């Protein structure tokens, strides 16, 4: 089923207001004057001699939806690890906006600066309920003492309900997250990501293990998020990427740790080198 999302959006002009709780919280230190949200320049990292990332350059515009594809071992996950502070690169730069140097920060600091990450495998807190999962993800002070005293405000309550409606888990709020189906877990994780109100969402293989129906829903959601957030999607499923990048969105192809080609899906598919290493079409 093909949905023309651009026209769909025009039919619902008030839609932006409905979801204004999704508006990311502006980090005061974040500076996007040049309308580029994420700078990655000549980044390299190697593990035991293997160059996982090799002179990688990548720029994510503010509000952009970017798909990143690439064969296994192309360095997609390592790139996300570097952006989120899990892995430190050997050389290169990674800036969030003009001023925030990601390489000097650890994971919690980067998350609090406004970068949210969704993992390949759905990682929810299995022993906590759906509600509690979202509650923990909520944009709030992460300090232990303030968490100890934290009470749910009415606004937060409404925010939670809206996200629950968006991810379609209203019926399951008291269920432990571990009891959800695979697709529901993926959605819960996306919902948790949205609760963090990040400026940049890194989404690693969001549709792995989803049904076609769920995939369409996910694509719709991710597209509706772009604009307010920048969304970087790493995905294997070409059908999904094609769907997602409709309307001339940029797709980057990663190969052996650097960007092989960049352009619209049509341009990518015509690229000889891409055909050679990846598409094989």
């Amino acid at each position, binding site marked *: 089923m093909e949905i023309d999302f651009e026209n769909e959006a025009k039919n619902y002009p008030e839609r932006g207001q409905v979801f204004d709780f999704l508006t990311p919280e502006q980090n005061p230190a974040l500076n996007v004057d040049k309308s580029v949200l994420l700078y990655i320049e000549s980044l390299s990292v190697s593990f035991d001699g293997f160059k996982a990332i090799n002179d990688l350059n990548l720029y994510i515009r503010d509000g952009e939806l970017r798909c990143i594809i690439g064969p296994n071992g192309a360095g997609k996950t390592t790139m996300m690890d570097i952006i989120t502070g899990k892995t430190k690169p050997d050389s290169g730069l990674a800036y969030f906006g003009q001023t925030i140097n990601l390489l000097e920060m650890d994971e919690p600091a980067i998350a609090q600066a406004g970068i949210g*990450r969704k993992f390949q495998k759905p990682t929810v807190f299995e022993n*906590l309920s759906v509600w509690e999962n979202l509650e923990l993800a909520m944009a709030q002070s992460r300090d232990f*003492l303030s968490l100890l005293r934290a009470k749910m405000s009415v606004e937060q309550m409404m925010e939670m309900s809206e996200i629950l409606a968006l991810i379609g888990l209203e019926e399951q709020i008291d269920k432990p997250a571990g009891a959800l189906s695979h697709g529901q877990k993926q959605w819960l994780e996306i919902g948790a990501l949205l609760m963090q109100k990040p400026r940049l969402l890194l989404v690693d293989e969001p549709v792995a293990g989803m049904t076609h129906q769920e995939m369409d829903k996910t694509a719709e959601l991710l597209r509706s998020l772009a604009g307010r957030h920048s969304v970087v999607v790493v995905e294997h499923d070409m059908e999904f990427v094609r769907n997602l990048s409709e309307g001339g969105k940029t797709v980057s192809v990663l190969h052996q740790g650097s960007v092989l080609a960049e352009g619209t899906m049509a341009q990518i598919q015509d690229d000889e080198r891409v055909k050679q290493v990846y598409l094989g079409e």
Partner: protein
Amino acid sequence: MIRLLDQDRGGKWLIGSLLLAIVLVPILNSLPESSSLHIPTYSISLLGKYLTLALLAVAVDLVWGYLGILTLGHAAFFALGGYAMGMYLMRQIGDRGVYGNPDLPDFMVFLNWQELPWFWHGFDQFWLAVIMVMLVPGILAFVFGFLAFRSRVSGVYLSIITQAMTFALMLAFYRNEMGFGGNNGLTDFKDILGFSLQSDQTKIGLFIASAIALILGYLLCRAITTSRAGRAVVAVRDGESRARFMGYRVENIKLWVFTFSAVLAGVAGALYVPQVGIINPNEFSPINSIEVVVWVAVGGRATLYGAVLGAILINYAKSYFTVELPDIWLFALGGLFVLVTLLLPRGVTGLLKRKEVE
């Protein structure tokens, strides 16, 4: 306070029984000895001892059950709290010691020391002892945790380091030069706050103090685990790296809970010492910390009241078996642990919960 126990049937039972015991035990003790309901004073001290051990188990459950750190060194914090209280009790002896020296505890006279070491000063004041009971284990846990959590030591390695910590403290406290009585430890206590430790009233008072400490400790732990911070603690246990990517400072959360738990263990130790009348370096021995973990496992992890149940159950069994069947006691304990691990992975409380569901 009531709201803390809202969803906690076990907790309601526990606190109800403790409050009942606080009222009933002194009454039953005052009955004539011929009555079948009479509770002898030594039983009260024994019960009071169990309650302090139960508080230690609650502290361990908070760290192991909720935070997921298998601590094999919590008896060290317990013993440190005990030593702080023991020092106060030593100073209360005054010139009633064997050597009759009003300025120095007996063991120092025996070692031919001329004056009180600097760290013993002030311990004749009860308030200072109380502060130290909490401060010393707290500071040790804070420093230990700060170093261990910051370098992201976890799992088995962390458990082994906690064992090493309590073992090192044991060896240190065995040394006479440390100034804590060497292998004899601190004993021969006379009175606390002016009340003779030998009197029935004081023993009952200590029992009540232990029960109140357990109630308060339980409620505090419950306040943590039912708050949003408690859910963050569970999140750290179940998905440490995800909690980090969500922006939680995992090290800080661990440090807060670990330190709080150590303070709780210290308080338990301080109430334990006057009821058993001695504190010596054996309390630091690694096997003690492991035993506490067994209590929690038998009772059921991450329930808090399960820890209390496990501690009281096993310690009662221990007292019973060491009298009735002294030779097989250790086998009984070992067998019990094996059985519980095999048949009741969620402990005794897990069994009760399953019954409830059915």
